């Protein structure tokens, strides 16, 4: 117990405290000035927007995958199920390298998209795609077990009552998986906000346009601007903490729900 706490203290708490102290040293006025500087705001905005885009895609793709993997039987299903976890297993720098080469104007995907007027590399789409890739599994893995446990009798009841396929999904299935789905979405969003390795390879890091907040923190660091770096890091930390609280609340609700149905 003591060892656990001191390990956590040295490895996690102390470094975070160093950051918070640095932030406190800066003072609220300066803190606010740095946070609301145009470039910081642009970076935060881009990060949030791209993470939202990535999360919307992952929410839809995750629902589809969870549904397909639970409800249907088809050859190669187990392989598909295993493939879902690649983004967790693959180092993000490797993902970034591959994605940026694929989507570059002279890459396999870029060669198709670019002539259609859809450049990906060095645009917000590239940022969103990198974020999306690294957080693909969250929604799938959150929804899948709940969908598996879902009692089919409600659906059958709905069907005998004459409900259509879509109505059944919207009224019966979706409410049941909603808490788990939201947990997955929150995790996916949090991971997207924090993603660095994959994004910097593909984003082009254009100030005010495709520069994510964590990269701006690094740039501030490299410019000797420690206050700037610390403030941006702190803002990101606060957002992450907020998401953590939201996700814990959702998880608690999901557990309660599970307790009710069981």
């Amino acid at each position, binding site marked *: *117990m003591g*060892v*656990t*706490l001191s*390990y*956590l203290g040295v*490895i*996690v708490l*102390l*470094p*975070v405290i*160093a*950051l918070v102290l640095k932030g406190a040293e800066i003072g609220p006025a300066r803190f606010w000035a740095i946070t609301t500087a145009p470039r910081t705001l642009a970076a935060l905005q881009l990060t949030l927007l791209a993470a939202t885009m990535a999360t919307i895609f992952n929410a839809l*793709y995750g629902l*589809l*995958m969870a*549904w*397909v993997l639970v409800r*249907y039987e088809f050859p*190669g299903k187990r392989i*598909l199920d*295993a*493939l*879902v*976890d*690649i983004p*967790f*297993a*693959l*180092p*993000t*720098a*490797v993902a970034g*390298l*591959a994605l940026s*080469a*694929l989507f570059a104007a002279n890459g*396999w995907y870029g060669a198709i998209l670019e002539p259609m007027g859809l450049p990906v590399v060095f645009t917000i789409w590239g940022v969103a795609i990198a974020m999306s*890739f690294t957080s*693909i599994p969250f929604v799938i893995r959150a929804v899948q077990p709940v969908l598996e446990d879902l009692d089919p009798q409600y659906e059958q009841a709905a069907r005998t009552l004459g409900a259509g*396929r879509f109505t059944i999904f919207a009224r019966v299935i979706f409410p049941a998986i909603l808490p788990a789905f939201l947990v997955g979405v929150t995790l996916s969003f949090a*991971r997207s*906000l*924090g*993603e*660095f*390795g994959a994004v910097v390879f593909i984003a082009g890091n254009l100030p005010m346009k495709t520069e994510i907040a*964590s*990269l701006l*923190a*690094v740039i501030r*660091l490299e410019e000797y601007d*420690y206050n700037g770096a*610390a403030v941006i*890091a702190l803002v*990101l930390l606060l957002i992450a*903490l907020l*998401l953590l*609280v939201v996700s*814990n609340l959702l998880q608690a609700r999901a557990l309660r729900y599970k307790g009710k149905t069981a």
Partner: protein
Amino acid sequence: MSAHADPAPAALAPRESRLVPRLLIGLALLLTAVFVVVPMAYIFHRAFAAGYAVFLTNITEPNTLHAIWLTVLTAVIVLPVNIAFGVAAAWAIARFTFPGRKALLVLIEIPFSISPIIAGICYLLLYGRNGLIGPYLLANDIQILFALPGIVMVTMFVTAPFVVREVLPLMQAQGSEQEQAALTLGASGWQIFRRVTLPNIRWALLYGAVLCGARAVGEFGGVSVVAGKIRGQTNTLPLQIELLFQDLNVTGAFAAASTLTLIALVVLVLKTLMESRR
């Protein structure tokens, strides 16, 4: 189109329900192929594009070999520590109530939800020459940043939650009846852990360890802040990929990336095997 000619509603339903699943399965397969499989396959394609001999030369280049060694070394140090920590923390949270238990949970989750870059910045602010305890380290000639200790500690930070996250729900769900029974039978703490607790959480533990290992091997952002880019000294494999890329040795970068992809595939197979045993 002929389906419309058939007026029987009973026949229409199964026909339609075959079509929708096929569409959905097709879409799922297509998206997974485009977004997951092709990027992975592309790495091998580029790594071997110039032939097997070139691949071998790239992989056995001393700096890349050293990066492989450093990455393995880091994972070998981080993994046992975080397994021990993960089990101990999960045990404490699941079995005891104490003030600050919720705070402890949040603290453990922090590394999971923040950008690893922030971890790196935190470490700079703590151990850097101008950091909180940097001057003390300097006076005593202790090198943490830009050396193995810094790389290992940041990796520990980033991978701290993985084992706890897997083991904790299982421990909470299983309760402590079996352990208490063993206790009344006179078993010692270690015996209880080894004979009762461990077998119950075995697969979750391994699963968490595999995820932790994969992340330790692949960590990029946090380590990049504290590693100092010394060639053949402090470059882990993910950093070496970036370095080779910027050395204009793209094939070499993909070759190094392919070794990491291979590790990822091994992790995937291990994980799938474990899932079927859970």
